[in-house]
């Protein structure tokens, strides 16, 4: 269970996140949407422990992210908007570094490495320097490092950015598969159809505030008739930002 409790964060005078709260359980896929500058990346950075909140708390199970960072970080996988890659390294060399730095033992690392290379379609490129990979494959390498330690919570900031349509479908399948294993998946995107396609829960934020949160079926049918996420998104964002 992930509990985000009233997290707020300012950058100087700019209030990026204003008391954001939500809870999701195992097996959920949360689609995180909002206009540019809405606070998505800030929220994701706080959830992963990358950034400290000014107030509020984030609990993964019984553990608070910022009170027990080492413990919680070992259970979180994060893919930032720009994949954090050492481009001079080969793919498998990079993943080995990530695994060792996370304290994985040799046998566990060997098994997980094969698993994530296969799941992300990188097996054939394992010995290639990351600098020679296309943007799509770099994105996969970034995803592979987030999956390597088999985290309970996966936080992905625009994971399909730079992927071609076939790769996007592969990514959707991968995320569905991870959720089916009981993992919590949070992803942000500007592609609303993507959220409709794979998210079990939807969170819409603007100006750092939660505009809507709930199960996809409940949110998109909330006014009594089926409506698209685009309509809901536009109506909520325009209402708050006329």
């Amino acid at each position, binding site marked *: 269970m992930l509990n985000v409790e009233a997290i707020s964060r300012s*950058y100087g005078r700019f209030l990026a996140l204003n008391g954001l709260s939500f809870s999701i359980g195992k097996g959920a896929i949360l689609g995180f949407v909002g206009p540019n500058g809405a606070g998505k990346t800030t929220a994701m950075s706080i959830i992963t422990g990358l950034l400290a909140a000014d107030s509020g708390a984030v609990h993964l199970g019984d553990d608070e992210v910022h009170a027990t960072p*080492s413990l919680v970080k*070992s259970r979180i996988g994060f893919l930032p908007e720009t994949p954090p890659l050492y481009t*001079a390294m080969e793919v498998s060399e990079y993943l080995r570094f990530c695994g060792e*730095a*996370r304290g994985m033992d040799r046998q566990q690392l060997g098994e997980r490495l094969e698993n994530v290379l296969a799941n992300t379609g990188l097996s054939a490129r394992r010995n290639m320097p990351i600098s020679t990979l296309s943007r799509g494959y770099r994105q996969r390498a970034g995803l592979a490092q987030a999956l390597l330690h088999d985290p309970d919570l996966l936080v992905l900031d625009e994971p399909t950015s730079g992927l071609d349509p076939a790769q996007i479908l592969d990514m959707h399948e991968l995320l569905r598969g991870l959720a089916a294993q009981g993992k919590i998946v949070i992803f942000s995107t500007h592609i609303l159809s993507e959220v409709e396609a794979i998210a079990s829960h939807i969170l819409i934020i603007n100006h750092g505030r939660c505009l809507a949160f709930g199960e996809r079926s409940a949110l998109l049918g909330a006014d009594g008739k089926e409506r698209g996420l685009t309509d809901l998104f536009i109506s909520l964002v325009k209402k708050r930002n006329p």
Partner: protein
Amino acid sequence: MISVLRRELLAFFTSAAGYVLMAVFPVAMGLLALFVFPAVLERGASWFHTKELTMRSFFLAFPWVAAAVMPAIAMRSWAEEYRGNTFQLLLTLPAPSWRLVAGKYLASVAVLCLMLLTTGVFPVMIAANGGWEGGPIFGGYLGCLLLGSGYLAIGMFASSLTSNQLGAYMAALLACGTLTALGSFAGLAGSSGALSSMVRFMAAGDHFNLLAAGYLKLETVTFFISMAAFFLMLTALGVEGRRYR
């Protein structure tokens, strides 16, 4: 920590700059020790004319070379992580900041040790010609390690402040150069009083010269270890502080 150390060493030795530094360092030290510093000290003579089978000029040159070279080794340590977005990866690792700092620092100290090893030909040459003086040579190399390690910590701290490697280098060069030169200007602060004591205490070049003369004093060793520990602590705080910016 070990994985970070290994990655840093790999990054250093997979770049041309690493090998260039390894090749240039002993040559530059040799030229400075054989021709430049003896000429300054003995008014125009080279080491060959001084008829002195010692490493005195080598150790006189080292603090100045270290002030220029150690910041160059350390400048990329954090600045490159900030610029390349890999800092986010480091911050999501289940390791406290001090372990990341320690890993990077120990890698740079390992590079320093290798650089010092490349100068091993000088004491061998001196010993072969019957000029071996154990105290000053061991003391001098210990001084090189301690002073170099202190300057690496300063360079690492400067690197943790910015994503601009050149900016980090210039800041560390200024700080290390000042610490090296401080002893030469101690007279300007007077011969007594708090300011004078402070200047003499901070004069890293003078502490180094004591070791290079064969005087192994606890105070001197403590000075360099404290300097390194102080700047590494600031680096860890600065890295951790980025989560609050």
